[in-house]
C-alpha cells in the first residue's frame, strides 16, 4: 500500500510537469501566425539534393520541413496515420480524384506529390525540357501511367530525389514527386503506385 501511494504521488508530479510543458508549448504556438513559412533553401550547384525546390509549387523540403510545418500548410484536407507510423497528409489539388500529398516520417517530410498547374501562365507550370535543362537526362523513363494514361511516362531522377509524370508528346508535366534520394527500383517500389509497366502500348 505505501508503495502504491508513492507511485500515485510520483504520477501526480509527472502529470503536473507534463501539464506545464503543454501550457508552455501552447503559449509558443499562440505567438505564431497560422502560416508557417515554407523554407526556401538555396539551390545547390548541380542540383543533386532534395534540399531545394524542384518545382515552384512544391510545399516542402524533404527531410527539412517538419510535421508541424506540414500541418499548417494551406489546403490541408486529410491526415492518415499509416500502420508503420508514417503520416500521410493530403492537400487540395487541381483534380478532385488526385490530391497533393506529403508523407511524414519521424517528424520530417519524406515524400511529396504535387500536381502541376494546368495553366501555362502559372509559374508552377513546367515542361519536361525545363527539368532536363537543369538536371540532365533522367535515370529511367517508364511508359504507362495508371491515372494519366497508358502512353504517359514517368521520368525518374531517383538519385536526385525526384520524379515526374509527363506527356512525352507535348512536354507537359502533370505531377512531381519529391523524396529522399534513392535507387530507381526503390522509388518505383515505394512511391511508384502510378507506374504501369504492363500498360498496353495505346488506348482502346
Amino acid at each position, binding site marked *: 500500500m505505501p508503495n502504491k501511494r508513492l507511485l500515485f504521488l510520483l504520477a501526480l508530479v509527472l*502529470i503536473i510537469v507534463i501539464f506545464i510543458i*503543454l501550457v508552455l508549448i501552447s503559449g509558443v504556438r499562440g505567438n505564431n501566425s497560422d502560416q508557417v513559412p515554407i523554407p526556401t533553401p538555396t539551390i545547390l550547384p548541380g542540383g543533386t539534393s532534395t534540399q531545394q525546390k524542384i518545382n515552384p509549387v512544391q510545399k516542402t523540403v524533404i527531410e527539412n520541413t517538419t510535421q508541424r510545418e506540414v500541418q499548417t500548410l494551406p489546403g490541408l484536407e486529410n491526415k492518415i496515420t499509416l500502420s508503420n507510423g508514417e503520416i500521410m497528409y493530403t492537400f487540395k489539388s487541381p483534380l478532385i480524384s488526385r490530391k497533393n500529398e506529403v508523407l511524414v516520417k519521424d517528424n520530417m517530410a519524406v515524400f511529396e506529390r504535387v500536381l502541376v498547374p494546368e495553366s501555362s501562365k502559372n509559374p508552377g507550370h513546367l515542361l519536361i525540357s525545363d527539368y532536363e535543362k537543369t538536371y540532365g537526362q533522367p535515370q529511367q523513363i517508364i511508359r504507362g501511367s495508371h491515372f494519366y494514361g*497508358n502512353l504517359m511516362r514517368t521520368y525518374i531522377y531517383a538519385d536526385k530525389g525526384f520524379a515526374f509524370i509527363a*506527356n512525352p508528346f507535348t512536354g507537359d508535366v502533370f505531377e512531381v514527386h519529391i523524396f529522399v534520394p534513392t535507387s530507381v527500383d526503390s522509388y518505383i517500389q515505394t512511391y511508384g503506385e502510378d507506374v504501369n509497366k504492363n500498360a498496353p502500348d495505346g488506348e482502346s
Partner: protein
Amino acid sequence: MEQLNHFFQSLKSKQTPVFVISFLLLCLFLIFQLYYTTNEPSLPPAIAKTIKRILTVRAAGIDYSKYTKPPFNLPSPNGDSDTKYDSETISRANTLGGYVQKHLPYLQGKFSSHPEYIDPFSAVIWDVAIEGTGADPYNWNCQDIQGSSNNVNNGCPNGYSSGGWQVNGIQVSQAASHLAADFQEVYGKTDGATVKSVGDKIIGGSSSPKITNPSSFPSTDLQTIISTNTVESRQLMAILLMDPELGAVAISQEVAGDISGTGNWVSAMSGWGSYYSGNMQTFSNRAKYLADNYNGTVTGGSGATTGGGSYSLDLILKPLSKDSYVLNMATAQAIGGGSGGSGQGAPPGSANGQCTPTGAPPTDPGAELLSKYKITTQGFSSEGVINVYDLFTCLSSSRVPSLLGKTDIVIHNDVRPNNAGIGMSCDAGCGIWIPEGTNAFKFILTHELGHVLYYTNSPEVMHYADAENAWSSEGGLSPYSGPYYAGQGNCPTQGAVEDYAEMVAYYLNPTLGGKTGACDSRDNPKNSLFEDTHFPLHLNAAKQVL
C-alpha cells in the same frame, strides 16, 4: 493537499477550461494505467489469461457499407446471398482476413501512397464471394491443360503467363514478383531449409488430392526457385502459395494492385469480362453475408491447414485475364439517338447522323485529308476513304481541325498489332486502328480521335482538369468509362482517360447514343451529353474544348 487545492484554484482563476479538461483526462488516464499495472500481476495467471483471451475474441460481423464506397465501390447489397457459406468456409475466410491483418504494416508499406487499398476483408470478398475458392488454400486450377484441370498433380506446364493458373484465387505468375519478400515477411528467411519445411508441411497437409507432384519439397532457397523459372520450379511456387498465411499476404497485394489501377475495385474488375461485370450485385450480396459472419480471427497456426475440405459453392472459376478487356473494347454500337434528341448545343456541322457534306467528294480525298489534317488512311477502300473524309468535313467547323496537325495520324483499316482490337497509339506520330465496316464506325473513330487529341495537346488546351473533375463528380459518360455510371448499375471498366474519349465521341455525334465495350448492356442508350441531364459538367468541359 493544500498545495493541490491551490493548484486547482489557480487553474480555475486562469479560466482555461480546455486545459483543465485535458489535465483531468490525463490524470484519469494515468491513474487507470497505474491501477492496471499495479493490480494485474496480482491476478492468478489462469484468470489473467482467460481475460486476455476473452478480450481478443472479436464479435462476428463488420460494417459492410465500407465496401460500397471508394475504393471498393461494390453495389449496395440488395437481397439475400445466393450462397450460404458453411462454417468451415467462414472459418477459412476469417483466417484469411486475420493473416492479412497480422501483416498489415508490411502490406501497407508496399502501398504507402494508398494504404487503404490493403484491406483484410477485401481479400475475403475476392476469394470467397467473387472467385469462389472458399478461401481453401488448396484450391488449385489450371485452365490451360486438358481443357482445364483442378488436380494439382497435373501441374500447369503451359499456363504460367496466361492468367489461367491460380492457387486460391491468385495467379502464380502474378505472385512471383513478391513471393520471396512475402515469404521473408511471414517466415523471416527464405533459405532452403525453411522453404522445404513450409513446403513439406503443405504437401503433408494435402488430402484431396494428396500432392504427389512433388512428393516432398526440395531444400532450395526461394530466390533460386523463382529465378529458375521451369515448369517444376513454378509448381513449387504454386505449392508455397497454398500456405494460408503466405497466400493471404499475396492475395491482399493482388487485390490492392487491382484497385490501384483506377482507384476503384469494381471498375477494375468489370474490365475482365462478363463474369465480373455481370455479377457485381451477386458478389456484393454474398460479401454482405460474409461480412455479417466475419470476425477476422485466425484458426490454427501458420502452415498448411486441413486440406481440401468440402464446400458447397456453385461458382465457376474464371481466370484473371486482364488483357481481355482490350478485345472487349473492340465492340461498340451507335444506337440512333434515343428519343430523337435535338443535339441542342452541339457543335455546328458536327459528325452527327444528319451531317451530309454537300457537293461531290474531291477527286483525291486521301490527299485532302493529308494536306488539311495531316491524316493518312491506310488500307481502306475508296469508299472507306470517303467516309473518313466526310467525317472530318463534318468536323471542320468545330475546333477539331485546330487541335489536329500537332502530329501525323495514320488511320489503319485494321485492328491493332497483336490482335489488340480497335484502338490508338502514338510514338513519333499517332495511329488509329479501326476496320472498315466496324459498327458505329464514326462514333468509334471519334472516340479514338479523342484519345489522340488528349495525347497531342496540352492539358490546358484540352481542359483536362475540367474533364477529369467532371468524371470524378458525375461519373462516367457511359458504363465503359466509370467510376460509376449514373444511368444504371456499375459496369465501369476504365477511367478518366477513357471518359475523355467518350466525351469527345458523344459531343461530336450529338444525335447518337453510343455503346462502347462489351460490358455496356443498355438497349437504347441516349447521347449522354445531349439527351441526358446527368452530365452538365461534362458538357461544359466538352464545349470548352471542342
